[in-house]
């Protein structure tokens, strides 16, 4: 089971801040495709151009491996400071 988190605009647009994925997923690219298949907003807002991704609280890339019990977060470009 992979824990998936959404922050900021993504959370607002997708209407959820957290969900769980039970399917076997190998890497960030596969998780992104699985989530984008959920609908038009998901497809648009979770594109690699718009959504950054972190695996276990570290910035990740499309080929970063994902295993069971990992925490994966999607979020827009950051605007702190």
């Amino acid at each position: 089971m992979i824990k998936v988190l959404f922050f900021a605009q993504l959370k607002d647009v997708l209407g959820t801040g957290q969900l769980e994925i039970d399917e076997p997923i190998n890497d960030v690219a596969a998780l992104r495709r699985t989530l984008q298949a959920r609908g038009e907003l998901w497809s648009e807002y979770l594109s690699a151009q718009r959504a950054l991704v972190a695996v276990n609280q570290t910035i990740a890339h499309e080929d970063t491996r994902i295993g069971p019990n990992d925490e994966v977060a999607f979020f827009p470009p950051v605007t702190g400071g």
Partner: protein
Amino acid sequence: MTISVSVSTQVLDIQQLSAALQTASLGKCGALVTFTGLVRDFSTLSNVDALSLEHYPGMTERAMAALAEQAKDRWAVEHVVVCHRVGEMQSGDVIVFVGIASAHRAAAFDAAQFIMDQLKTCVPLWKKERSNGQWHWTAQKDSDRSQAARWSAPSGNGD
């Protein structure tokens, strides 16, 4: 050598933060550099009447600590303090405080600028502003991306 990072929903007291840095530095460090980011008066922006910061609990602290570690690897600095405010804020409130203590001033200036520039592109914090009763997420600025990018040049210093 110490690193202190924190995220707070409470008002940040920069006098207290800089006093702690000064006390930690006594004797060893000849230079203290601090950066404080403040909420500007909303009335100067069109109709904005509130500001709020969301963050990714856990990762925010990890990302700030990673920047502090990078700064310590790159420059001869003794103490690094990074504090970020989250939640709803008022005009004049401190958003972020970065404090560096080092033997010599160039390292402290470079490390403080590096941490601020990187924080703007690498730490999971998101700003939103309310105007006319609606919250709007702030977009990342091109200038923030270019200021962060300059640190990845091979020479790596701020000169």
